[in-house]
């Protein structure tokens, strides 16, 4: 279609759209989604559609005092984190299945870790193959991949199976007074902290991999890692990892050969008075 025809077509569509507002909607099934139009078009191009904006929330208590002193992993905190995640995911499964979704994409994950409880909030859009019927909660997948990445994954012959998560909170043992004094004003590695981070990392990554295996996945993509000291406990470090579990659904991986494009959409050059100096 030539540029002029395309413009005429667009203008005709705008007029048709504006005229359609003269009469009420004839649809009986409204959908809600937090996807952009590009993402919806991407989904549609692979035969999927958005169904409903869904959410899952959970909060688990952490027993008082577990952060303050000790050695090794802070199991109660790790347990609270794992429980909060799995409970929020379970609720997301249920909401999505109730809405007729087969999966949830673009899940936004928000975690709040306090000394006495951990909360996890998940919000995403339930999606399904166009016109597909309902499935049970257990078969719904949850993924933090964007709808665009989900489309790419499906085109390459893969499928998402769920969210894999792993976390560990570990004490960094305090140094003896003698060691602290001897190391004062020296450039020295604090191996207690380094070791704690390594220990937390080992446990968290192992748990994430185990949850991927439990979902019968062959790998985890888009793994996010959050690590560091806990704001409310100077001698505790945390390591959390999560990502989307995937498995090859087609007979073999379909190689995607990208085309090279040269964009004619140059960035806007703004006048910068500082360059005159």
């Amino acid at each position, binding site marked *: 279609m030539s540029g002029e025809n395309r413009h005429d077509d667009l203008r005709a569509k*705008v007029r048709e759209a*504006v005229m359609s*507002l003269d009469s009420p909607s004839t*649809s009986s099934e409204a959908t809600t989604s937090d996807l952009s139009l590009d993402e919806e078009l991407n989904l549609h191009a692979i035969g999927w559609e958005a169904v409903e904006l869904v959410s899952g929330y959970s909060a688990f208590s952490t027993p008082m005092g577990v952060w303050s002193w000790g050695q090794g992993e802070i199991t109660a905190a790790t347990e609270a984190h794992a429980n*909060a995640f799995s409970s929020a995911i379970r609720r997301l499964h249920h909401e999505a299945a109730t809405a007729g979704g087969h999966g949830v994409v673009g899940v936004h994950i928000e975690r709040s870790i306090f000394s*006495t409880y951990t909360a996890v909030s998940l919000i995403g859009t339930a999606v399904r193959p166009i016109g597909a019927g309902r499935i049970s909660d257990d078969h719904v997948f949850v993924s933090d991949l964007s709808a665009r990445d989900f489309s790419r994954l499906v085109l390459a012959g893969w499928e998402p199976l769920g969210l894999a998560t792993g976390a560990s909170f570990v004490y960094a043992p305090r140094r003896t007074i003698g060691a602290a004094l001897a190391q004062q004003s020296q450039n020295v590695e604090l191996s207690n902290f380094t070791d704690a981070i390594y220990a937390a990392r080992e446990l968290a990554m192992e748990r994430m991999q185990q949850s991927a295996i439990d979902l019968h996945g062959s790998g985890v993509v888009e793994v996010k890692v959050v690590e560091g000291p806990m704001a409310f406990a100077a001698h505790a470090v945390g390591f959390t990892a999560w990502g989307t579990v995937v498995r090859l659904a087609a007979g073999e991986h379909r190689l995607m050969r990208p085309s*090279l*494009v040269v964009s004619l959409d140059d960035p806007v050059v703004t006048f910068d008075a500082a360059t005159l100096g």
Partner: protein
Amino acid sequence: METNLVDGASTGFSSGLSVADFAACLAMDLEPVGLVQGFCAMQAGGFAMGLTQMGQPMGGQGGYVENYQCPHGMVGGEHRMWGQNYEQTWVEQSWSGGFTAALDRMRDEAARLGAHGVVGVVDTETPLAGAGVVEFHLRGTAVRVVGTTPTNTPWTTYLAGQRLVKLFESGFAPVSVVAVAASVRVYAYCVTEYLMGGGGVNIWSSSSSSVEINQIVRAQSLSRDLARSMARAQLHGDDLHAAQLDVVDREHERGDLEILSTLRGNRVRRFRAFESLATPRPTVRLT
């Protein structure tokens, strides 16, 4: 005299559009006619109700209410014998009243300019001096379809520019911006108080394992559900697009929590079926 940008303007116009969005509007035969705005400073009339003492059921206000009873059989001033989650309907009504008034005023301005719709809507809510007073401010660019006369209340959308082009191209018409707020208040009962404070389910036990805090989970989940139901109630069979659900919680004091879920999005109506789309082609951009 009518403004006509395409054939040569005879009166000036103002717009909040970027140059790129302005160009996209002209490509759609939408000419900007003015920057329109709506304001409303709203006080939550029932603000004082938020200070209601424990033990005063809020069920009379309508909306969701759920009570939690102490399982320990203890009586004492310090012991929270019961708790409650309830929907703060007066907060929701105030929010919705303020937003809708500002939206209507913006639409009225657009209608007076002879516009078909308002594009690139931006809304802000700013607390003003005085407890519980919020200023709602909506603004956008009123546009007119070249060569036609509007017959309806102007439509509104958060979209502009290429995003709006894509909306029309994909067979959707913008109907209205939608914004709702759901407010749930939590007065913790003893079990919730102990669990949030790191204790066990009763005052004597110090739990060694983690336990789900049901009252909080219910309140948080309900506030999200309520926001979605309110938005759905405004759709009348249309779709809600590019929605954004924001949840803010505020702990006034221990066990006294207020959760506000706001949901915004574009209500859109399908005027043509999706045309079958080509399979997306991956590209690498040479920049």
